[in-house]
C-alpha cells in the first residue's frame, strides 16, 4: 500500500473498516498475478480461511482443482484487465473442500494507466441456485420422463398439459390435444360407454384410480395401458383437476398371454380323454397332479362326458407317481361329479403303495369301484354298458 501518500492511506483505512463490516460479500484485493493481498471477515466467513492462511496465496485455491488446472483463473483475470470487468458464476471451494455456488466480479485496479491488481467481489448463491433447481426440478423431471405419459386434466377431464412421454406414447403433439377431452384416447366402445367420465369420478371419490385397458394412439392403433388418475385439490378441498400417468404395457400383456396360451396347451396335452369304446371313456392320468392340472382334468372329463354321453369313465392312475390327500380327494370329487351327471367311474392301475396310501390317509372311498389293470377295468365297463342300468349303480367292489 505504499504507492500513495498519507492522506490516501487514511482514506484507505476507512475503506478497509467499511469492507470489514461487509459480511455477506467477500471483497478482496489481488495483485496483478492474482495473488491474494487483502482479507476480511466476510471473506473468512465465506471460505473459512484466516488472513494469515490466505494472504500471499494465488486466487486459484478457491477454484475446483480441474478448473484451476484448465487456466480458468488466468482467463478471468485477462478478461477483467482487457474489458474492465469479468463477471462469472461457478462452483468455488472452501478450505474444508466443500463447494459453494458463487457469483464473482473481478475489476482491475489502475495506477497511472497500468493494471496493478484486481478487486474481487464474491457472493454465495448456493441457496438461490438450489431454489432455482428445485423450481426447475418438476418441469425438468417431467420433460425427462419419456416412458410414461404424465399430463394434467382439468376437473371436467379436458387435457391441460402435455409431455414428451405423452407424445411418444400417443403420437399427438401438444397443439393437437390441449383443450380436448381425455376420452379422445379411449377406444370407441369405451367412449360410448362413458368410461373416461366414470374413471374420473371414481378417482375424485376415492382419491386415486388405477386401471388397465385399451387406449388408442393418433394413428388409430391400440395399446394396452396402465393408467393412474390422481385428483388435485386446492386448500379448501375443491377439485382443481387430475394428474394422469399412463404407461404402455402391451409388451408385458402379450408375454403374459403367450405364457397363458402355452400353459393351456400343456394342460390340454397332459390330460387327454380317450374314447375306447362306445359310451366308454378312458382318462389316463400321467405325472404329478397339482391343483390347477387336477381342476383342468375334471373340467375336461366332465365336458367330454356331456358331449359323448359316456356312461362309464375309466380313470387310469398307473402313471401317477404318488397320491397324496389332495390328489386322492380330487379324484374322488371327480368321480362324484361324474356320478351326478349319470356316469359311472372305474378306477384302474392302483399300485400297492397307492392302495396303502389311500387307506392310511383315511380317505372315504364312497362308492368307488376299482380294478387292478386297465384290461379288467374295461371289462367291467363293458359289463356296465351292456348290462342293465342297475349295474351302473354302485355295487360291491
Amino acid at each position: 500500500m505504499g504507492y500513495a501518500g498519507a492522506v490516501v492511506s487514511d482514506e484507505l483505512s476507512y475503506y478497509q473498516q467499511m469492507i470489514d463490516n461487509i459480511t455477506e460479500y467477500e471483497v478482496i484485493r489481488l495483485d496483478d498475478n492474482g495473488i491474494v493481498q487483502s482479507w476480511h471477515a466476510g471473506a473468512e466467513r465465506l471460505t473459512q480461511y484466516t488472513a494469515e492462511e490466505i494472504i500471499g496465496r494465488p486466487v486459484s485455491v478457491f477454484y475446483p482443482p480441474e478448473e484451476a488446472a484448465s487456466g480458468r483463473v488466468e482467463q478471468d483475470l485477462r478478461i477483467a484487465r482487457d474489458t474492465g470487468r469479468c463477471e462469472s458464476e461457478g462452483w468455488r471451494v472452501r478450505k474444508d473442500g466443500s463447494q459453494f455456488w458463487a457469483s464473482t466480479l473481478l475489476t482491475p485496479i489502475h495506477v497511472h494507466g497500468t493494471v496493478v491488481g484486481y478487486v474481487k467481489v464474491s457472493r454465495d448463491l448456493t441457496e438461490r441456485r438450489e431454489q432455482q433447481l428445485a423450481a426447475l426440478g418438476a418441469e425438468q423431471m417431467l420433460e425427462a420422463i419419456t416412458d410414461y405419459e404424465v399430463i394434467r386434466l382439468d376437473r371436467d377431464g379436458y387435457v391441460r398439459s402435455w409431455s414428451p412421454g405423452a407424445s411418444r406414447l400417443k403420437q399427438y403433439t401438444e397443439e393437437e390435444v390441449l383443450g380436448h377431452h381425455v376420452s379422445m384416447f379411449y377406444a370407441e366402445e369405451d367412449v360410448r360407454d362413458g368410461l373416461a367420465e366414470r374413471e374420473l369420478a371414481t378417482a375424485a371419490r376415492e382419491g386415486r384410480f388405477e386401471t388397465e385397458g385399451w387406449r388408442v394412439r393418433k394413428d388409430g392403433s391400440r395399446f394396452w395401458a396402465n393408467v393412474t388418475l390422481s385428483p388435485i385439490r386446492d386448500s379448501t378441498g375443491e377439485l382443481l383437476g387430475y394428474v394422469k400417468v399412463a404407461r404402455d404395457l402391451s409388451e408385458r400383456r402379450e408375454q403374459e398371454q403367450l405364457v397363458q396360451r402355452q400353459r393351456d396347451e400343456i394342460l390340454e396335452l397332459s390330460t387327454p380323454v380317450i374314447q375306447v369304446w362306445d359310451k366308454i371313456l378312458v382318462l389316463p392320468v400321467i405325472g404329478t397332479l397339482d391343483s390347477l392340472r387336477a381342476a383342468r382334468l375334471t373340467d375336461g372329463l366332465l365336458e367330454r362326458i356331456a358331449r359323448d354321453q359316456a356312461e362309464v369313465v375309466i380313470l387310469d392312475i398307473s402313471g401317477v407317481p404318488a397320491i397324496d390327500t389332495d390328489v386322492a380327494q380330487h379324484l374322488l370329487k371327480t368321480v362324484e361329479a361324474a356320478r351326478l351327471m349319470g356316469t359311472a367311474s372305474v378306477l384302474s392301475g392302483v399300485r400297492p403303495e397307492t392302495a396303502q396310501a389311500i387307506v392310511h390317509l383315511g380317505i372315504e372311498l364312497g362308492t368307488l369301484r376299482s380294478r387292478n389293470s386297465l384290461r379288467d377295468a374295461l371289462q367291467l365297463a363293458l359289463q356296465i354298458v351292456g348290462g342293465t342300468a342297475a349295474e351302473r349303480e354302485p355295487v360291491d367292489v
Partner: protein
Amino acid sequence: MSDDIPILRLGPNLMVTLQGNLEDTTVEHIERAVTHEVARTRATGLLIDVSGLSIVDSFVARVIARLVAMVRLLGARSTIVGIQPAVAITLVELGVPMSHVRTALNAEQGMALLREPTGR
C-alpha cells in the same frame, strides 16, 4: 318360470323340467304341481330334468332333494337327469349331500333306470 309347470306323462312315469331361476314362489308351485300330479296319475316314477337351470347352488340342491323326498312319500321313485358339468362340480365343491339321489345322463337313461324293478 311361469305358474304352469310343464309335467309330461310318459307311461307310468312323469317328467318335470326345471328351468331358469328358481325362486321361493316358483319352488312352491313346482312342489304343489308335482305332488298333486303324482298322486292324481298314480305314477311310479318321476324324471326331474335340470339341464335348463341356469344356476344350481345349495338352495336348488335342497329343493331337488325335497322334491325327491316328497315323491318317495307318495310311493314313486325319482331320477335326476341333465346335470351339467359346471353344476356337478359346484355341487361336489359345495359338499351338498346328493348320494341318495339317482342320476342319469339323459331322459332315455333316466327312463331305463325308472323301469327297473324296485327294491334297491
